[in-house]
């Protein structure tokens, strides 16, 4: 019986994981309507300053998943890349927020901001410009 419960729990967790979609969001005041994932990655990898990236917490699942999907980079590769930019004074890493709600709040408040959150956390304070598979 216990085993069954654990199995059920595990499979529901797996299902939740599989169905979790990440969306890239901007403020309602931002004129952008659509974006490709390569474009989105430019802001998060310090290659463009046109938008201000807002990041999820380091070590979070959504963050690792996001960089893998938009740039095919794991957290260590992203960190190495940012080390290069930070210690040559070229850029400062994105500000981090602890969860979807805080990221959403920060993005909503800044017309230049770009962030990513779980699709289920979206509301009308922000605008979805890209849905990651």
């Amino acid at each position, binding site marked *: 019986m216990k085993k069954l419960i654990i199995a059920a729990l595990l499979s529901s967790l797996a299902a939740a994981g599989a169905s979790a979609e990440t969306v890239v969001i901007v403020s309602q005041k931002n004129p952008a309507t659509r974006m490709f994932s*390569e474009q989105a990655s*430019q802001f998060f990898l310090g*290659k*463009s*300053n*046109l938008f201000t990236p807002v990041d999820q917490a*380091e*070590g979070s699942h959504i963050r690792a998943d996001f960089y893998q999907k938009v740039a095919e980079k*794991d*957290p*260590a*590769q992203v*960190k*190495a*890349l940012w*080390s*290069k930019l*930070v*210690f*040559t*004074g*070229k850029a*400062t890493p994105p500000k981090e927020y602890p969860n979807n709600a805080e990221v959403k709040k920060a993005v909503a408040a800044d017309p230049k901001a770009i962030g990513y959150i779980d699709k289920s956390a979206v509301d009308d304070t922000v605008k979805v410009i890209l849905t990651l598979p």
Partner: protein
Amino acid sequence: MKKQLLVAAVFAATAAMQAQAGTMGDDNLSISGFGTLGVAKSNTDQAQFARYNQAEGVSDKARIGLDTNLGLQATYKINDWLSGTAQILTRKNTSPTFTTDLTWAFLKARINDETSVRVGRVVLPTFLISDYQNVGYANTMMRPPIEMYGQAPIENVDGADINYQHAFGAINFTTQAFVGVSRGKLFVPTGAGSVATYRAPAAGISFTGEYGPFLVRVGHARANMKINDLAPINSLTGTLNQFGFTQLANDLGLTTGKKIAFTSIGGTMDWNNIVVQTEYAQRRAKEPVYIPDTNAWYSMVGYRVGKVLPYYAHASYKDAGSSVTPPAALPKNSPLGAVVYGLLPSPEQTSDIIGVRWDFAKSLALKVQIDRVKPKTKAGSLIFVQPGFNNNITVVGAALDFVF
């Protein structure tokens, strides 16, 4: 004892900085750092293998001084467009003990989304990785190939630089130009070793194009190198003057300032787990000087398997001629002629390097690297070479890179 103290200091500083950064209420101040704890040794006591401009290298006893360093950086955001950054770096450089230098110190003004100007002290982007060669964590290899990175003598300038970044469709274009005056020390490994101080007005420009995982960079830099206390050269030019070879003495020496140019093309690729970094550079004297012209190149290829990245690299530098032509009145076989003609050609060396980088934990990378160093002429880049020693050497190193 010194070693233990240093290691303790590194950890204490790291902990203190993290604690401080954690409790600092000021959103505008960010403190970060990088460092390497490394140990290396070679298979000979007949010569020392050193990084460029180090007063002490490694021989057959394990030493931490070759690769160990600690960098601390503070950035303060004054407002939306203005910020200030300072970075100090502790390492073994021109002195046999660990010393700390102010490597970066600038005010940065963001003119618009694509352009920024920095005023103060900036590290020269002479070659592809010049401005982050001390940040182990940001690099695949354990140390920059000395065959190329030993060609550029100066590290930073007090002046200004401008960065411009623009996307043309999927191609990201960056250009960086700098101008300023570099001042610093050069370690001269002749005899027992000495330190010379230089002053060099310098300027340069680089263009970088990036397309997805591919990056190509072209750079050109010039410096007008002036050194008054370069003991071995001054003693030679003194003798030449005594014997009436005043023109030759002026041609060889650096006391009047000599223009030297560096041109390089390099590229990186990180595609389908294949990691490539390669570069070719020329050093050319723009007026007569004893410093030889050189051509240098290296290529590194790695293949990423999860968190482990094994790599192989080959590096080489060769003589490319001299800007000085000794007069016919100074025959090659005269004692003084032999010294002059012996001085002019560049040392030559190649290296084969294998290594592995393992990103085993958050913000930590472990590297192990073996360099097979093959001096071709004049003992290559080895220092304190015993008379008659002409062998290839093997250098083994392990390093822990961290960022915080």
